[in-house]
């Protein structure tokens, strides 16, 4: 860990009572959902983390508390440092505040997380599906969502499978 990142992590721990974890030289800071906007603002304004590199989520189903982690990667051009924030969320329909006001490019990342995991962002300007079709049911990257497959059709079961396949028929 670099000097700047040490200082940043220390400030986050002090101000937000955050816990940290280190793995392979990368540091993760654990925050509560209601702290994320304040933390991002602090990091952007005082610690020069100018860019939101990435925002994604992980599903720990069947665990419920927490079921999801939302993960932010912030990057500082000035210090060439990267920091990871993790926000644990409980329950099956979690929500947390959007950070669109701090980093405008969070817009699409949050739409993707909503689309893939069903995590709601409070105050998001345009929260709708981004990659899946607008009428899709379920959230594909959840661990309780099956991978799915195409059934192989043979002569003897062609009609049976064709009847239950979902596509536009005459």
């Amino acid at each position, binding site marked *: 860990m670099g000097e700047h990142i040490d200082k940043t992590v220390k400030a986050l721990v002090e101000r937000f009572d955050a816990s940290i974890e280190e793995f392979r030289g990368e540091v993760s800071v654990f925050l509560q959902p209601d702290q994320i906007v304040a933390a991002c603002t602090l990091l952007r304004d005082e610690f020069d983390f100018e860019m939101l590199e990435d925002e994604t989520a992980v599903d720990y189903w069947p665990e419920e508390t927490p079921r999801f982690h939302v*993960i932010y990667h912030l990057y500082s051009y000035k210090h060439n440092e990267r920091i990871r924030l993790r926000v644990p969320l409980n329950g099956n329909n979690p929500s947390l505040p959007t950070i669109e006001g701090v980093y405008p*490019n969070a*817009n699409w990342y949050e739409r993707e997380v909503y689309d893939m995991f069903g995590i709601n962002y409070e105050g998001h300007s345009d929260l709708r599906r*981004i990659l899946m*079709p607008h009428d899709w049911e379920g959230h594909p990257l959840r661990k309780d969502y099956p991978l799915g497959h195409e059934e192989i059709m043979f002569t003897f079961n062609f009609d049976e499978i064709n009847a239950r396949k979902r596509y536009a028929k005459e």
Partner: protein
Amino acid sequence: MPEINTHIDESMLDGITRLVTEDAIEGKTMLLNMGPQHPSTHGVLRLLLELDGEFVVNVIPDIGFLHTGVEKHMEYKTFEKAVVMTDRLDYLNNIGNNLVYCLAVEKLVDLDVPPRAQAIRVILTELQRISSHLVWLGTHALDLAAMSVFLYCFREREMILDIMEMCSGQRMMTSYFRPGGLWRDVPIEFEDAVRQFLRIFPARIDEYEALLTKNPLFLERTQHVGVLKAEDAIRWGVTGPSLRASGVAHDLRKVRPYSGYEQYDFDIPTHTDGDTYARYLVRMEEMRQSLRIVQQALDKLPYGPTRSNNRKFVPPPRSELGHSMEAVIHHFKLFTEGFPAPKGAVYVAVESPRGELGVYLEGDGGPKPYRIHWRTPSFANLQVLKLLAKGHLVADLVALIGTIDIVLGDIDR
């Protein structure tokens, strides 16, 4: 008479009135659909344009037509088998995708890569960067009605694809890099083929530049079109040549070197104008710098193994299987259940031809990625199109889609 369904679904793009201005609802501005089947959208990108006459007021991109669920699929494959999925993301930069994935796995399981494998990785990644820039240049010029550049670019790209085929057996879907090294060593003809390319290509770049750089029609279409300021680029997470053309000298190969990039001497081309022409100049210079890197890496290409010797992660060579029981066991274990990764998460990013290509990889102690997320440069860069296009003509929008160099496989994953 059949009943006509006039119901507009609020969740559909066309039903969302809040995304357009009041003028569009009153009918003062026009809504125009562009794509997904449109030659200048470089794939299946759909744009909903709000136009005032021929000027763009707002652009609403609609993506996801090429979504194949790569991230979900990779969760169901072992680390070694998931390499083939990576080729299918950014199909103009397959080698770069292989590289970032392998780097992430290597970091997660703490695996070393021999120097020869690293040097070959650098050579192929840089060749792939040139080939990707050639496709960009060809299609970008084609969008601006310069047909011949396209043909020249694809002629040279063919030479690179031949080198890829020579190494991996595939022109595009290479899957050549594996966690711990390479699939196998490069063939004996490799060095000659790359040297041949290095001899020919510098003159060919001059040829493209002769066609475009001072061409008044090209200048007219690109200068002062789509100006991106440095602070906007950083705020919107734009990376790669688009960021460097706005004056920020940031290249992950320099600031956070990987695969031994620190050994090579190269410059980061930048420009301060931030317009379409600046992005063109930056990419052209990047091709020259890539040639420099390839030249240096080839000149001091070390001898030695191309795969890690750690048998817990990398299969043993074929020759050992005949006489070593241990090798057979390792081979069997690796190809049936794969190798386990510790519980933990890593994020690795490399400089792809389009910008920062990152992988967030999480292991849970098992042989499959628990979660893998691709931070793709096209996805991040496309968001800024709205900003670039405002106030320009529809014809310029075509140039702007070309200049941010998107690959739809990279956006939709």
